[in-house]
């Protein structure tokens, strides 16, 4: 790898969209000289669902895919013996601040072939839904919850789609969105009040949720966006329906 190529690759970093700096080949954005076997195979297999290909930072291959086909593509990448990306290194999302889309990023690694591949899917900000890959890589469990918590992307088929970092009665939105104000939407007094209305026992595990569901016991509506939060008998008027 020459240093020129590296510099050229750096140009394309963190832009989220193909620009002249990134090495996106003309003609549908596919690099004809791609030396990444998975990229070639993926294009051959899925055709239109794989939108374009890009190389950044010298040798990092990114494939932009149609969000509707994310699950098909990823399960093929995991299960096909020629690919066998058996390690989901990271799953995260990016808001580039254009108010149009949230980009979900899958960083894959194939241990048998010693190969890396990055898959990206642009979701329109009005329709943030995507198939969960929980059943492909269990590593995605908490990562998908984090993306949901921070960006509001809902992963269809995830068994436990709750907030993971913010408290369950958090009703100010999704903090890592670019339109989220740094200090939150509520006043500090209201934030303090809401925080103290949580009880330390309010953190249910999935098993407890399941048991309560089977026993028909009511649960606080903690999973709904802007939901009423957790009722606290010590503070009438805070939380609860």
């Amino acid at each position, binding site marked *: 790898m020459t240093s020129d190529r590296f510099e050229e690759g750096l140009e394309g970093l963190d832009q989220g969209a193909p620009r002249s700096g990134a090495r996106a080949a003309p003609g549908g954005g596919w690099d004809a000289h791609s030396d990444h076997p998975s990229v070639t195979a993926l294009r051959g297999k899925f055709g239109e669902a794989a939108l374009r290909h890009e190389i950044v930072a010298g040798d990092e291959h990114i494939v932009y895919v149609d969000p509707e086909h994310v699950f098909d593509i990823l399960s093929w990448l995991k299960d096909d013996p020629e690919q066998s990306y058996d390690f989901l290194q990271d799953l995260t999302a990016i808001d580039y601040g254009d108010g149009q889309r949230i980009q979900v990023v899958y960083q894959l690694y194939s241990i048998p072939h010693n190969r890396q591949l990055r898959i990206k899917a642009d979701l329109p900000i009005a329709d943030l839904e995507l198939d969960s890959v929980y059943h492909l890589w269990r590593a995605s469990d908490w990562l998908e919850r984090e993306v949901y918590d921070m960006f509001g992307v809902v992963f269809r088929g995830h068994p436990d789609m709750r907030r993971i970092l913010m408290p369950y009665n958090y009703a*100010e939105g999704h903090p890592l969105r670019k339109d989220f104000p740094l*200090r939150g939407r509520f006043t500090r007094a209201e934030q303090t009040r809401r925080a103290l209305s*949580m009880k330390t026992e309010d953190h249910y595990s999935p098993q407890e949720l399941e048991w309560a569901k089977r026993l028909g016991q009511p649960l606080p509506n903690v999973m709904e966006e802007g939901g009423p939060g957790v009722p606290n008998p010590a*503070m009438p008027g805070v939380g609860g329906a």
Partner: protein
Amino acid sequence: MGLNESTAPAERTDNLPGRRERGVSGALTAAPSFLTTRMDTVVNWARKNSLWPMPFGTACCAIEMMASAATKYDLARFGMERMSFSPRQADLLICAGRVTYKMAPVLRKIWDQMPQPKWSISMGACASSGGVFDAYSMVQGIDTIIPVDVYVPGCPPRPEGLIYGILMIQDKIKESSPTQDWYGEEDPLAVGRPALPEDHIQDITLPFGNSTTQNRGSGLMSTGAVVRPDDRRP
């Protein structure tokens, strides 16, 4: 002087040669004796020299707190023989580090679980004011959550700083009056609630602004470091 003498009646010490001249009787002979003092003084003396801290370490300040308790600085010199990791057996809460809103009910609960009399130290910039973390997830000073007796500045404070804060707590205990202040008198409705009224929280947690906005607010055009006129070189 032997063990036998310790059970001897106090009168006998007066008969021993040289005792009366020293002005002490029981103290040197180990014979039963008494001293007169104020109740406040002796209770405060006992309390301030046997504080058991409840360490609430959430960030890097906790490292300095651990150093304070370790060999070199040795909090045991001041009566803190052990860190009490159970709030029921603690009387000094040391909040060392930043506290998120998600952690706030935990801090409040630990404070509520500590028996009276109790004191608290807010250690470091983040615990005292939110520090540099003026963000959506951070409590802007734990005094909005629990009452605070002593704030220790620093980022993080050195062990000397924490020890100085603890000595201030000891001074405060020394000046208090356990026979007149009724510590058990705590509003039961205060449990689980913010330590301050809502408008007060709003006042003290208004964004102070970083150095850049302060410089702009003071009329300086440059957003760099403030340069004093004396510092300018010709």
